[in-house]
């Protein structure tokens, strides 16, 4: 039970829990988009902290310190892809929120329930 030793992992899961709280307990559509963005941020942070080696430097050879261990580069590459996909998701969510506001006049999810056929 090492909360202090694994503090980066615990903090990224805390961000995911904050995003889940916003998604479950808030009713405004823009706040729910912020909640989705918080979950994605937490997962990106978790991916980056998975590749850390104790006492390591960045995996770049330009002006690197001589004889230092370098961290793993693959989780950083996967996080780049994940950030861009998060951007694409947020852009489409926001444009659908604009469309819903145009059609219903409100952003409250408890009032957007009718399926017009």
């Amino acid at each position, binding site marked *: *039970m*090492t909360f202090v030793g*694994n503090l980066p992992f615990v903090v990224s899961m805390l961000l995911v829990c904050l995003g889940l709280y916003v998604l479950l307990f808030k009713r405004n559509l823009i706040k729910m988009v912020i909640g989705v963005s918080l979950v994605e941020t937490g997962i990106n942070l978790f991916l980056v902290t998975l*590749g*850390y080696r104790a006492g390591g430097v960045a*995996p770049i050879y330009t002006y690197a310190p001589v004889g230092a261990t370098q961290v793993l580069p*693959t989780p950083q590459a996967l996080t*780049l892809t994940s950030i861009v996909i998060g951007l*694409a998701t947020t852009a489409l969510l926001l444009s659908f929120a604009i469309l819903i506001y145009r059609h219903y006049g409100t952003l409250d999810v408890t009032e957007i329930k009718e399926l017009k056929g």
Partner: protein
Amino acid sequence: MKRALLAVAFLLVASFLLLAAAEMRPFGAPTSSVMDDYFLGQAQAEVAANNVVTAVVFDYRGFDTLGEATVLFAAVVGVLAVFRRLREDER
């Protein structure tokens, strides 16, 4: 009643996530790094680049970058399609 049930479910999921993060392997000691040691050792010889992360993104794992470029293109086309329909509704 529904909010109480929602609160209990949220507390269960949150405690599961936080305890799983605390019980993971120690921070700073990756379990196996055979592939990444190969990347760090051979990137300057094969790809002739100093930045190993860029070499991984564009050369060793270039196929994922192709998928990501496709996702970005689909998002731009989707947003433009939504707002083009709105503009033609008003004409």
